[in-house]
Every structure is written in C-alpha cells, then in structure tokens.
C-alpha cells in the first residue's frame, strides 16, 4: 500500500471530467488546437499511472463511505490489471482527443468533451473496488456511449445508439444481480475481498457466473450479443476508434479478467468462455469478410479479437494471460490506428467503401505507411507486436487440454482477419481502383490526421522490436490475476520447441489462407450474411403483444387499469373485512358536513357534465373542498399544497381546453354502464382499503420521534417540512428529479406535436 497526499483515484476521475467541462464550455471556439490541448490531461494522467505502478501483487486502494450500513462504499483498487487498462485508455485517449479535434468540422467541443467524460467513466470501471461503484461506472460508460453513437442526430444513429444501450444496459442489470448475489454469499461488496474458494463451492455459483457472463458478453459484443457493435459504427469515427476498438468493448474483458481469480478455475467458467469466445471469434470474422465499408470491416474484426481475448481468459494460466495482455496492447495500437485511417480516408475521398477507393498511397504516403504498419501488425508479421501476440495466443492454446479444437478455431479466425486487414488496407491504398468504379476526388486534409495513425501504428513496431518494454507491465498484470505468477518472457523470436513451431505453422497457414481469401474477395460484391441475432423483430413482436392488453385510447387504458387493480385488491380486502373493521369515530360538526357534501356534489358534476368547462370548474371545487377538509383536520401544509396543485391543474386544463379535439362520439349505453360499474367497484375497494388500513394500529413512536427531533436536531418547528427536506430528503430528491424529467418529457411532446416539419440538423454534416 502506498501513502498518498493527493488522492490518486480522485485525480484519475476528476481530471477528465474537468477536461470535459472545459471542452463543453469552450465549444463555440473554432480552433481545433484548443481542444487538442485538452489531451494534455490524459497524457499527464498516463504519466502519473506509470510512476505510481504498484509492485506485483500489490495495489493502491482508497475508499470513501457511501451507505455504510449496507457496505456500499466508493472504493477503488489500482493493481496491475487496472494499470494495464488505464494506460491503454489514457494513451489511446490522448491520440483520439487530438484526432477528434482536427477531424470534426463542427461539434468539436461536444465530441471532445464526451470523449473525456467517457475516459473518466472507463477509468472508474477499471479501478472500482466496490460492486456498486463498478456498476455505477459501468452504466455510465453505456450512457456516454449513447451520446457518442447518436452524435449526429440522424435517425439511423439514434436507432443504433438505442440498440447498443438496451443491450449493454440490460446486460449490466443482469451483472448487478450476480454481483449482489456474490456479495450476499460472501458478506462483502468489496471485489478485492471476495474469496474464490467460498464462491466456487457456493450453491449460487452457477447463477453468479451466468450473470457476470451476461454483463461481459453484452458489453464486449460476444455471441449472441454482437448485433449492436456493427450498427454502432454510426458514431463519428474518432468515437468509434476510441470506444469500439480500444476501450468500451474491452470493459467486458476487464470484468472477466478481474473475476477470473475469484470465479475461475472451474470447468463451467473455462468451458463457457472458450466456447462462447471461440464461436464469436470465427463467426464475426467470417461475417466481416463480406463487408465493404472500412468501418464495418474493422468492427467485425474487433468482435473477433474480443472473442479471442475471451477464449484466452477461459484457457487461464500464465501463458494465456500474458497472451491476453500483449494482444490487448497490440490490438489497441493497430485497431485504433486503422479506425483513424478509415476516418482520414473518409475525409480525403468522401467515402469509406473500399470498392470506390484505390491508389491512395501515392496521394498520402504518410497515411499509407501508417495503415501498412497497422495492417502488418493485424496480420501478425514480425517484427510487429501483432506477431508476438499471435504467437503467444497460439502457443497458449496448444498448451491446453482441448488444444486441437481451439487452435483450429483461432487459426481460422486469424485467416479471416488477415483477409480483412488486406481488404481494409491493401485494397484502398495499394491496388488501383476497380475498373469502372468512380474514384472520388481526393481532398487535402490536415497532416495531423495522417500523423496520428502513423504514430500509433509505429508503437506496434517499437514494442515489437523491444518487447522487454512491456515486460514489467505484463508481470504486474499477470500477478494480479494469478497471484504469484509471472508473465512469460517476451521476445521477438520465441524459444524453439514443438509448441512454438506449431504456432508458427499455424500463423503461416493463417496468412496464406488469408491471402487466398483476399484474392477472392477483393472485387467481391457486397453480400448480407445473417448470423448475429437481431433483436429488433423480437422487440416489435413484444410491442404488438403488449398492445393487445393496453389499447390505444386512454379511456380504455384507464378502464383496464382500474378493473385489474380493483380485482387484485378485492380479495385481501374481503379477507380483512371478514376479520372485522374498526371504524374510528371522528368528531364532525356542521362545517365538515357541508364540505363533504360539496365534495360529493363536485364529483357528481364532474362525472355528469356535458361540457368541458363545467367539468373543469367542478374538479376545482372538489379539490378546494378536500383541501379545506385537510385544513380542518390540522394539516395546513397538505391543504396549502393541494390548493396550489388544484390551481395549477385548473390552469392546465383551461389551456389544454383549446387543444382538445372535438368530441366526435359520446359513449354508448354499454360503455357508460361499464364505466360506472368499474368506477363504483374501484371506489368501494379504495374506501374499504382506507378503512382497513386505518384500523391498523401503527406504533405511535415514529410520529413522536419525528416530532421530538424536528426541533432539537433539525431546528425546525414544521415537522412536515423537516421530514420532506431533511429527514427524508433522499425521497424528495428522487421525486423532484422525476418531476423535472416528466416536465421535460411533456415539454418535448408539446413542442413536437406542433411542428411535424423536419428540423434543420446542423450536426448532420459534422461527420460526413
């Protein structure tokens, strides 16, 4: 444990948030340089992480109390695994921030701000120690990702964002269940305190790992949840480069790696991971072969690599985990770089479809070189880091029990990836344009957009030539996951034994196969290959089914709601009635009786008026009468609130009066009868419930306590107000936020119902 003066974790989280706020506030400034400068924040943080790197097996921990009685704390834990992810998040983040600043023609500030916010959320995920803290940041990444995917505001983008959010948030909720169950089983919400032995022998173990799988598989787009990632390519390219290659999708991998020492080492864990990862890696790479948009190609290959990472975690052991570390670093470097290349190509030539591109290397040799280096790393050729990664992956797969199956799968997937890499890079840059295809005119773009991918890709070259640079980080990460273990020594040329030779053979096979596939595919017409499960038709069916029970008209909806609740409440009510109700006598005088009669008259008038206006007035009468009854029962706050609400309600109704459509038909006799019946039953049920609950003798201590403490502890003589804003302020906070959200929703609905004309969208041009 290290002693700290300034909180390390708070710095990690708050600095990017501040950078985001600065970007949002300065959004109107046109100069890209200003926003690129915010990249200094993640750069500084990356440097801090490097200097604070804990020793293997140790970690920096910090904790702030949140809900002490439940064990929920705002706690953080920085060990080798966190460091690996944090460094990837931050270093790629630096480059992406600069890239985004120069890439966007409009909306720079907003995009850069969102990227910083995302950085903060992601850092929170990889350093969180408490299950609730983890969940909070997990969902936060999903929320920020929604804003990033839907950035240009088009219908397609909104749909894609919604899909991504539903899938990942749903998975997140299931994960929460699993985490809480683990907490209940072991008695602690702290992740680092979880005991593997206890959990693995617990009867809840299968449910817990399934829940964790759900969280990881949805976030990392594993089969069958891969559907959201390709459509998420609607996001602006800098966002895709960051989220959907280097960071967000890796969150699932982080989760699995973090829980591996605790939940791993069982057949269920390993088998599921290897199976799901294996299917994902081959299937998605295969699907990717038929795409022609550069971003789509990259998206599918990302899913495939994620599958490989899942398989590696499933395999377990120092070799596989070392492979995982190197693959994460290699993938981040070449994938983010290739995404940036795709973005720059888009800016240069106006299209990302490879069939319309060609001979780009001559037009932009810097970009072409960067793309080439990245592609070589993706293919897995020495002396690049991708080669070392591939070797390690295949060697660890050969070292396990089911060697043949996994190795063949991995080789197949690698072959597909080689083809994809060639499609993305060789086709547009080095081959001539397809005959007859129109090659779009090439514009000049900022050199920054070509330098950045080149720099990132060359990192792959540097680490490939000097892999020892990564040795320390690998050791730390492996030690966090497998206590006491050490990473395999990294070298460009692996030691020669059967396994490495076989692995080499595997790589060569993959490359050859890939080349052959590329030759077949380079002029292939685009084909849609279904394979991932698309949830949209299922959602549409669900909507249909629900529509059967909830008919469109509000009248009928209310009828159904009241009828069902009356029926549901009738039975327990009858039971307590049979047990005997006690009616508490209350002293009434003349005024009370008048008020009650007024209320009844008002209610009858509302039901039977033939005109809207008289109904509205009668409603007001009912409200005021009830308020006066409250006042007479010594509840002045309640009465005042009701009077205010009545006044505002009447105002609303009067204003809405103008918008109401003309009544075209009145209810017929049968409908009226049904209404009266349901209304009467519901009224009787509610009255009965009120009487029955009044007969319950609740302990008076609660009220007395509140009364006594209000003055002494809260300095207030008005108990009601004190309860609302002090003792039970949390409830009020929730209620007021709901009011705000409801008002915003009503506001949006009211505005759009007036103008069905399409709004001018300035963001649409931002990424085109």
């Amino acid at each position, binding site marked *: 444990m290290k002693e700290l003066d300034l909180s390390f974790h708070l710095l990690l989280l708050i600095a990017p948030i501040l950078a985001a706020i600065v970007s949002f506030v300065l959004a109107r400034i046109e100069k890209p340089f200003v926003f690129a400068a915010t990249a200094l924040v993640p750069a500084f943080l990356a440097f801090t992480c490097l200097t604070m790197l804990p020793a293997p097996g140790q970690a920096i921990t910090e904790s*702030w*109390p*949140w*809900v*002490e009685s439940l064990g929920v704390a705002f706690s953080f834990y920085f060990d080798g695994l966190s460091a690996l992810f944090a460094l990837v998040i931050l270093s790629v983040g630096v480059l992406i921030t600069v890239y985004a600043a120069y890439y966007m023609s409009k909306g720079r500030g907003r995009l850069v701000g969102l990227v910083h916010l995302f950085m903060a959320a992601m850092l929170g995920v990889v350093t969180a120690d408490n299950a609730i803290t983890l969940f909070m940041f997990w969902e936060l990444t999903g929320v920020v990702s929604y804003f990033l995917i839907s950035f240009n505001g088009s219908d397609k983008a909104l749909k894609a964002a919604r899909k991504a959010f539903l899938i990942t948030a749903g998975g997140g909720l299931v994960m929460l269940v699993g985490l809480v169950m683990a907490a209940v089983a072991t008695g602690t919400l702290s992740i680092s305190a979880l005991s593997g032995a206890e959990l693995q022998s617990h009867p809840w173990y299968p449910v817990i790992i399934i829940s964790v799988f759900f969280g990881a598989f949805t976030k990392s787009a594993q089969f069958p949840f891969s559907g959201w990632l390709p459509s998420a390519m609607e996001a602006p390219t800098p966002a895709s480069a960051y989220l959907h290659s280097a960071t967000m999708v890796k969150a699932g991998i982080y989760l699995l790696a973090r829980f591996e020492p605790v939940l791993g080492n069982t057949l269920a864990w390993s088998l599921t991971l290897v199976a799901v990862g294996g299917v994902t890696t081959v299937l998605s790479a295969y699907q990717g072969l038929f795409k022609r948009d550069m971003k789509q190609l990259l998206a599918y290959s990302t899913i495939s690599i994620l599958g490989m990472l899942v398989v590696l975690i499933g395999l377990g052991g120092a070799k596989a985990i070392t492979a995982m570390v190197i693959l994460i670093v290699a993938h981040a470097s070449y994938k983010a770089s290739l995404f940036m290349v795709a973005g720059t190509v888009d800016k240069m030539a106006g299209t990302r479809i490879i069939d319309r591109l060609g001979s780009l290397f001559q037009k932009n040799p810097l970009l072409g070189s960067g793309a080439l280096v990245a592609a070589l790393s993706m293919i897995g050729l020495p002396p690049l880091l991708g080669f070392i990664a591939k070797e390690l992956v295949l060697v660890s797969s050969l070292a396990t029990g089911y060697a043949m199956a996994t190795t063949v799968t991995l080789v197949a997937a690698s072959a597909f990836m080689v083809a994809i890499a060639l499609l993305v890079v060789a086709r547009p840059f080095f081959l001539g344009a397809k005959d007859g295809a129109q090659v779009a005119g090439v514009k000049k773009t900022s050199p920054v957009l070509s330098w950045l991918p080149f720099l990132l890709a060359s990192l792959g070259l540097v680490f490939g030539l000097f892999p020892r640079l990564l040795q320390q980080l690998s050791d730390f990460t492996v030690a966090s996951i497998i206590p006491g273990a050490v990473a395999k020594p990294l070298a460009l040329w692996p030691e020669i034994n059967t396994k490495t030779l076989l692995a080499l053979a595997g790589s060569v096979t993959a490359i050859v196969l890939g080349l052959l596939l590329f030759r077949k595919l380079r002029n292939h017409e685009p084909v849609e290959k279904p394979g991932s499960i698309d949830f949209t038709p299922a959602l549409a069916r669900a909507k249909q089914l629900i529509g059967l029970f909830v008919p469109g008209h509000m009248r009928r909806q209310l009828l159904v709601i009241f009828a069902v609740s009356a029926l549901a409440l009738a039975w327990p009510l009858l039971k307590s009635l049979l047990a005997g109700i006690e009616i508490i006598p209350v002293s009434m005088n003349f005024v009370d009786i008048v008020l009650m009669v007024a209320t009844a008259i008002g209610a009858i008038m509302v039901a039977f008026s033939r005109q809207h206006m008289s109904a509205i007035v009668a409603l007001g009468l009912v409200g005021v009468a009830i308020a006066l009854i409250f006042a007479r029962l010594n509840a*002045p*706050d309640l009465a*005042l*609130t009701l009077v*205010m*609400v009545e*006044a*505002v309600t009447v*105002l*609303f109704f009067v*204003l*809405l009066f*103008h*918008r109401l459509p003309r009544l075209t038909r009145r209810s017929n006799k049968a409908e009226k009868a049904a209404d009266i019946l349901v209304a009467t039953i519901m009224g009787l049920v509610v009255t009965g419930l009120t009487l029955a609950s009044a007969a319950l003798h609740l302990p008076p201590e609660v009220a007395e306590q509140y009364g006594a403490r209000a003055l002494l502890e*809260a*300095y*207030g*003589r*008005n108990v*009601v*107000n*004190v309860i*609302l*804003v*002090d003792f039970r*302020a*949390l409830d*009020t*906070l929730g209620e*007021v*936020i709901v*009011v*705000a959200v*409801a*008002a*915003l929703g*009503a*506001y949006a609905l*009211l*505005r759009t119902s*007036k103008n069905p004309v399409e709004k001018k969208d300035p963001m649409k041009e931002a990424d085109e």
Partner: protein
Amino acid sequence: MNLLTLRVAASYIAWLMVAISVIVLFRGHNAPGGGFIGGMLAALGLAIRVLPVEKKERKAREISPLAWLVVGLAALLVAAFIPMVSGQPPLTAQLWFELPLLGRVGSVLLFDIGVYLVVSSASLLMIYELMEDA
C-alpha cells in the same frame, strides 16, 4: 374585466405573488410553507404575468424555465453531495451561518431552494408551451 387593465395589473400581481412565494419558501421550516408550495405559487404568479398578453409580447415577459430548472437541480445536487467533501455521507445536514431574519442557513435551505426552483420551472415549462396556441 378590461383586457388592458388585466395586462397592466398582471405584472404587479405576478411579482407580488412571486414575493409571497419566496416568503413562503423561507418560512417553511418553522411554519406551514416550504419549497413545493412556494414553487407552485411562483409558477402561478409568473403564469398570470403571461396569460393576458398578446403572442408577440409574450416572449418578453417569459423567464427561461430550462435555465432555472438546471439551476434548481444543481442546487439540489450540491446540497445533497457537499457533505461528502468533509467525509460525511451524502445528505447530512450542514449548518453554515445564522442570519437575523432568515434564521439558520444551511444545506437544508439550499435543498429547499432547489425544490422551489425545480417545481416552479417544471410547471412553467409546460405552461409556457401550452400557452403557445391559446
């Protein structure tokens, strides 16, 4: 009643109501009142200001409910989370200073002010929109 009379009187009535709503807000802790009641009163007052006015002049008389909504939410969140700065759990009541008329001022008052702002701006948000065609 003459519409012109109402239009002129509306401003005075409105600001009177807003002033009373502020009094209601601040007296809430020791007498009936508080953020909710005060907020609705303020919303009614500001609605009355705009109600009798022609469409063209309406914009000039409207406040900006969205901005105030955000301010209110910010006040609520600050009041809720500021105790964490000194290591206490959120929503721990903080006492800051004492003023002659207002009494004790602390995070609870800030919370109530937040409630007041949110309730009034939320209502006004909808009322202004509804008034567009009326």
